[in-house]
C-alpha cells in the first residue's frame, strides 16, 4: 500500500476563465483526518470536490495535473462510479433522499448490486451504528428520513456514505448548518471512524480543525499556503499569511 492515500500533483482547475486552483500539490495520508481551512472562495471546497470528481457536474470546469487514489489516476484510469464508491462525500447541507431511513442507507449498496434483503439489513444496521444514530432511528427505519432533525439527517448522510464501504470520506463543511451539540456528535463520530477511513474535511471553523484533524492545509486564493501537522500549523505557522489568518487578522 502506498504511503499516501490520495496524491494531488500540479493540479490546476479553471471554472471557465476563473483560475480556481493554482498548481496544487498535496498528499493525504491514510487513516488520518486532514482539514482544509481558509477564507471563502479560496478553493478548499473546489479541491475537495475534485477528489471525487464532483466538479465534473460544474459546467465549464477544466483541470490539468493529476489526482491519484492509491497510485491510480482518478481522472484517466478509473471508472467514475468506482471512484465515487471508494471516495464518499458528505455535503454542507444534509441531503437525505425523500425516502425512508432504510432506503436512504440501502441506496448506495443497491446501486452497487447488492439485492439480498438480509445483506441489506446487515449493511443498514452496521452503517447506522457506525454513524452513531442507530439508537435514535432503529425503531423507525421505514419512516421518512425528512422527519429527522438536521443533526440526525447529517449523521444519516454519513451512514449513507459509509454504507458503500468507501476508503475515503470527503466532508464539505458538514457541521456549518448544525447546532453545537450536533456538531460535537459529528466531530466525535469522525474521530471514532478515522481508524478505518481516510477523512478529508473542509471547515470554516478553525477550532474544529484543531479539535479533530491530524493535518491541516491552509488555502488562499486557490493556492495551498501551508500544509502541516495541525498542531504545528496552529502553534508555529511558518508563513506570515497563515499566522494572520489563524490569529484572525483577516478572513
Amino acid at each position, binding site marked *: 500500500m502506498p504511503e499516501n492515500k490520495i496524491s494531488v500533483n500540479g493540479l490546476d482547475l479553471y471554472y471557465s476563465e476563473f483560475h480556481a486552483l493554482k498548481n496544487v500539490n498535496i498528499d493525504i495520508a491514510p487513516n488520518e483526518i486532514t482539514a482544509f481551512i481558509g477564507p471563502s472562495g479560496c478553493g478548499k471546497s473546489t479541491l475537495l470536490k475534485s477528489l*471525487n470528481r*464532483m466538479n465534473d*457536474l460544474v459546467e465549464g470546469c477544466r483541470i490539468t495535473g493529476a489526482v491519484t487514489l492509491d497510485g491510480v489516476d482518478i481522472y484517466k484510469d478509473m471508472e467514475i*462510479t*468506482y*471512484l*465515487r*464508491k471508494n471516495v*464518499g*462525500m458528505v*455535503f454542507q*447541507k444534509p*441531503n*437525505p*433522499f*425523500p*425516502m425512508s431511513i432504510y432506503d436512504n442507507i440501502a*441506496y*448506495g449498496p443497491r*446501486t*452497487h448490486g447488492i439485492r439480498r434483503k438480509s445483506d441489506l439489513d446487515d449493511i443498514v444496521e452496521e452503517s447506522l451504528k457506525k454513524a452513531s444514530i442507530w439508537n435514535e432511528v432503529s425503531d423507525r427505519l421505514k419512516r*421518512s428520513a*425528512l*422527519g*429527522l*432533525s*438536521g443533526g440526525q439527517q447529517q449523521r444519516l*448522510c454519513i451512514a*449513507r*456514505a459509509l454504507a*458503500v464501504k468507501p476508503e475515503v470520506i470527503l466532508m464539505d463543511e458538514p457541521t456549518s*448548518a448544525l447546532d453545537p451539540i450536533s456538531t460535537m456528535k459529528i466531530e466525535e463520530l469522525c474521530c471514532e471512524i478515522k481508524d478505518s477511513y481516510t477523512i478529508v474535511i473542509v471547515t470554516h471553523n478553525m477550532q474544529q480543525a484543531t479539535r479533530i484533524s491530524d493535518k491541516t492545509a491552509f488555502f488562499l486564493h486557490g493556492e495551498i499556503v501551508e500544509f502541516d501537522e495541525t498542531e504545528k500549523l496552529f502553534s508555529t505557522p511558518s508563513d506570515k499569511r497563515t499566522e494572520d489568518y489563524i490569529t484572525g487578522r483577516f478572513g
Partner: protein
Amino acid sequence: MTTADSISERKSDSSDFFHKPPSGRTQRFIEKGAEIVFLLCALISIAAVVIICVYIFAGGIPAIAEIGLFDFLGGQRWKPYNEPAEYGIFPMILGSLYVTGGAVAVGVPVGLLTAIFMARFCPAPLYKVLKPMINLLAGIPSIVYGLFGMIVIVPIVRNLAGGDGNCIFTAALLLGMMILPTIIGLSETAIRSVPESYYEGAVALGATHERAVGTVVFPAAKSGILAGVILGIGRAIGETMAVIMVAGNQARMPKGLFAGVRTLTANIVTEMGDAGGLHYDALVATAVVLFGFILILNLCFSVLTNKKPKEGKSK
C-alpha cells in the same frame, strides 16, 4: 449655495415623497379603492363558477329525477327519438372513460419520458428547438387536431385494423397527443424543481446519471407529475371537437378498441341543435355528469398539489 437654499430646495424636491408620508386620508382611500377593485376581479371568477354550477345543475337535475338516476346513469340505451324515448347515458360514460383511459395510456408514458429527457438529458441546442415545439403543440386548436386525425390517423387505422377507422383506438391516439404538452410541461417543471442536492447525493454514492435521475430525482417529483397527469386527464375527458371527428360518434355500448364510440361531450354537442323538452334536459344532465367527473379530478389535483412536503422542519 447657502444652507437655507439647499434646505428649501430639498423641500421642493420630489424625494420629499419618500420622507414625508402622504396625507393619511387620501392614502387610505386609494388603498381601499385598489383593494376593492382586486376583490371585484377575483369575485368575477368565483361568480362564473357558481353561476355555471347553478344553471347546469338546475337544468340537469330535474331531468335526472324524471328519467330516474339509475336509468339515466346505468341505462344502456340512448334512444331519444324512439317512442317512448330512452335516455341511458351509460354508453357515453364508458365511451368517455375508454377514450380518456386510452389517451392516458398513450400520452402518459410518452409525456413522462419526454419530460425526463427535457429536464435531465437534453443537450441545450436541442432543448431550444424542442421546448417551443411542445408549446406550439399546446396551442394548436382542437379542430386542427381533429382534421389531422381524420385525414391522417383514421385512414391508417382503417388500413391496419379494418373497420372504418373511426374508433376508440384512433380517438385515444389523437387525445394522447393532445394531452402531451400538459403532461410534459408540468412534469418537466416538477422534475426541475427537485433539489439538486438529491441528485448530487446519489451520484456521490457512485450512481450513474441515469440511475440518479431514475431512482432519486424522478420519484421525488412524483406529486407534481401526478398533478400534470390529472390535468391531462381533465383535458382529455373534456375534449369535444377532435373526438367527434375521429371516434365514430355512435351512441351505443362500446364494442371494442376498433369500434366507434360516443363520449359525453360528443353526445351533448351532436344533439343539442335539434333537441327539445326532456331530450334537451337530458343533454344538460349529461353535462352535469361531465361536470362531476371534472370536479372529482380537480379535487384530486388540489389534494396532490396542496400536500405539504413531509419535511420535519423547514429552514
